[in-house]
C-alpha cells in the first residue's frame, strides 16, 4: 500500500493539509487575547514549553494511531484496546463533530465580514450595530450554510481534493498573516504592542493560572487530542514519516499563532493604546468582529488590510472545518458507508444542529464551552489508551514504524505519562475554579450558558449514550480494505 488515490500524494501536500487542520480561528483570535491577558512575555515561555510537553507527544500519538490502524478514532481505539473501549474513540469523534456544528457558524461569520470589508459596510458609524444586526439573524444561517456547503463540497472530493485545496489556501493564509504582521509592526507606536507581548514578568512565572492557560491554549490551538490529525493520518503513505511530521505540525501551528499575536497586538497598541485592556478583554467575537474593523479603518489603506484579515480568518476557519467534516465522514466510511452518503449524513446533521448556534449566541457560547472543555477529556483518553496498550509497546510498534525518519526514544514514554497528568490537573483545576467562583448552587444549574451543571449534564448524556451503544459502535466496523475502497 504505497500509492493510490486514497492516500496523500506527497509529503508537502500532507504537511499543508495537516497545518490547515491545526491553524484555525483560535490562532488568530484566541492566542493574541489569551497571551495579552496573561502577562504577554510571561505567558509565552510556558506556552512554548507545553508545545513540546503536550501538543507534540499527542500529535505523534495521533499520527501513529492513524497510520498504524488505518481507521478513524472510533476504529483506532477499538483496534488498539479491544471492543470494550470503543466508547473512548466515539467520545473523541463526538466532541469534534459537535464542535463542527457551531464552527460552521464561525466560518459563515468570516465570509460575511470579508464581504462587508470589501463592500465598505464595516466599520460604519456605530461599529457594534453591524454585529448586532447580523449575529442571530437569518443571514447568519445563510452564511453558515455557505461555509458548510464549501466544506462539504471539498470533502466530497476525497483526500486528494482536500490536499489540493490546502495546497492553495495554506500558503496563501501564511502569506496573508505575514503581510498583516509586517503592516502592523510598521505602524507608528507598534513597538508598544511588541513590548507588551514580549516583556516577561518573572514573578508571574510562579502563577499556576498562567501555566494552565498556556496548556489550555496549546490544547485548543494545535488540534492535539481532537482526533483530526488521526483521521488525516489514515491517508499517510506507508513510507511516510510520523515523528518529524508531528513536530512540524506543532511548531508550524504555533508559528502562525505568534505571527497573529504580533499582528493583532501591534495594531491594537498602535491605534488605541488607551483602550488596549478593554479590547483584549472583549472576548473572541468582540475583538475580531467589533474592534478589528475599527482599528483597520484607522490605518492607511485600512479597507484593503481589513479585507485581507477576514479572508485569512475565513481560510483558517475553512481548512479546520474541512478536517472536522472529514473526521465524521471517515468514521462513517469505516462503518461501510460510501463517501457520498457519509457527506450527505454529516451535512444534514451540520444544518440541523448548526442552525441553533447561528440563531442564538447563548446556545453558541454554551456549545463552545461544553465541547471545547470536552477536548480535555479527549486528550486524556488518548493518553490513557496508550498507557493501557503499553507506552513502550506502542512506541516500538506504531511510532517507530516503517518509514519513520528518526527513532523516538524513551523520553516519549515519560511525555505521555505527563500528558495524562496534565489533563487530570487541568480538569481538577477547572472544576475547582468553577465551584469556587460561582458557589455550589449556582455552578450546578444545568440551564445556564456556562455552569458546571450544563457541562456535567451534557457530558453525562453523551457518555451514557456511548457506553450504552458501545457494543454496536465496536462491531459495526468494516475491514480496512473495504473502507479504503469507499474513500
Amino acid at each position, binding site marked *: 500500500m504505497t500509492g493510490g488515490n486514497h492516500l496523500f500524494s506527497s*509529503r508537502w501536500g500532507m504537511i499543508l493539509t495537516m497545518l490547515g487542520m491545526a491553524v484555525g480561528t483560535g490562532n488568530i483570535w484566541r492566542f493574541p487575547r489569551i497571551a495579552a491577558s496573561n502577562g504577554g512575555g510571561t505567558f509565552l515561555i510556558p506556552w*512554548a514549553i507545553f508545545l513540546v510537553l503536550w501538543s507534540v507527544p499527542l500529535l505523534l500519538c495521533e499520527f501513529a494511531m492513524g497510520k498504524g490502524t488505518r481507521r478513524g478514532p472510533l476504529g483506532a481505539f477499538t483496534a488498539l484496546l479491544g471492543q470494550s473501549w470503543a466508547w473512548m474513540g466515539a467520545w473523541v469523534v463526538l466532541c469534534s463533530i459537535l464542535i463542527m456544528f457551531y464552527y460552521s457558524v464561525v466560518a459563515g461569520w468570516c465570509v460575511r465580514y470579508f464581504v462587508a470589508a470589501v463592500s465598505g459596510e464595516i466599520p460604519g458609524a456605530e461599529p457594534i450595530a453591524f454585529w448586532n444586526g447580523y449575529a442571530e439573524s437569518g443571514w447568519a444561517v445563510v452564511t453558515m450554510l455557505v461555509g458548510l456547503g464549501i466544506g462539504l463540497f471539498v470533502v466530497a472530493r476525497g483526500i486528494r481534493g482536500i490536499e489540493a485545496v490546502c495546497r492553495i489556501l495554506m500558503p496563501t493564509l501564511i502569506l496573508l498573516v505575514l503581510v498583516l504582521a509586517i503592516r502592523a509592526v510598521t505602524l507608528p507606536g507598534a513597538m508598544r504592542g511588541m513590548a507588551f507581548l*514580549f516583556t516577561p514578568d518573572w514573578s508571574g512565572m510562579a502563577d499556576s493560572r498562567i501555566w494552565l492557560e498556556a496548556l489550555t491554549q496549546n490544547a485548543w490551538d494545535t488540534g492535539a487530542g481532537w482526533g483530526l490529525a488521526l483521521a488525516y493520518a489514515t491517508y499517510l503513505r506507508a513510507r511516510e514519516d510520523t515523528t518529524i511530521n508531528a*513536530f512540524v505540525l506543532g511548531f*508550524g501551528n*504555533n508559528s502562525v499563532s505568534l505571527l497573529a499575536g504580533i499582528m493583532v497586538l501591534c495594531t491594537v497598541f498602535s491605534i488605541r493604546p488607551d483602550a488596549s485592556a478593554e479590547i483584549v478583554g472583549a472576548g473572541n467575537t468582540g475583538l475580531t468582529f467589533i474592534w478589528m474593523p475599527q482599528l483597520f479603518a484607522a490605518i492607511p489603506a485600512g479597507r484593503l488590510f481589513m479585507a485581507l484579515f477576514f479572508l485569512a480568518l475565513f481560510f483558517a476557519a475553512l481548512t479546520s472545518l474541512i478536517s472536522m467534516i472529514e473526521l465524521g465522514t471517515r468514521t462513517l466510511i469505516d462503518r461501510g458507508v460510501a463517501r457520498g452518503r457519509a457527506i450527505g449524513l454529516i451535512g444534514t446533521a451540520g444544518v440541523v444542529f448548526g442552525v441553533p448556534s447561528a440563531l442564538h449566541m447563548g446556545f453558541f457560547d454554551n456549545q463552545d464551552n461544553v465541547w471545547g472543555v470536552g477536548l480535555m477529556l479527549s486528550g486524556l483518553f488518548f493518553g490513557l489508551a496508550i498507557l493501557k496498550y503499553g507506552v513502550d509497546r506502542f512506541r516500538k510498534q506504531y511510532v517507530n514504524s516503517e518509514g519513520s*525518519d528518526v527513532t523516538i526514544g524513551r523520553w516519549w514514554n515519560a511525555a505521555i505519562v505527563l500528558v495524562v497528568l496534565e489533563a487530570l490537573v487541568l480538569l481538577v483545576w477547572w472544576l475547582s475554579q468553577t465551584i469556587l467562583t460561582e458557589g455550589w448552587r449556582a455552578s450546578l444549574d444545568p440551564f445556564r450558558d456556562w455552569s458546571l451543571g450544563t457541562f456535567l449534564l451534557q457530558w453525562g448524556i453523551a457518555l451514557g449514550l456511548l457506553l450504552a451503544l458501545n457494543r454496536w459502535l465496536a462491531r459495526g466496523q468494516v475491514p480496512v480494505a473495504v473502507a479504503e475502497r469507499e474513500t
Partner: protein
Amino acid sequence: MSAAAWVTFALVGGFVWGGFLCLLAVALRKERGKRRQDHAPEGERGLWVP
C-alpha cells in the same frame, strides 16, 4: 522595547519559528532522499542513506 523583551522575542521566536523552519527543511530533505531512493537503479537501492 526593553532588553528583556528583545531577549524573550529572540528566544521564543527563535524556538518556534526557527524550530519550524529547521524541521520543515529536514522533513523535505528526507523526502527528497526517499524519492531518490525510489528512482535509483535496482542495484543501488539502499546505498543512499537520507
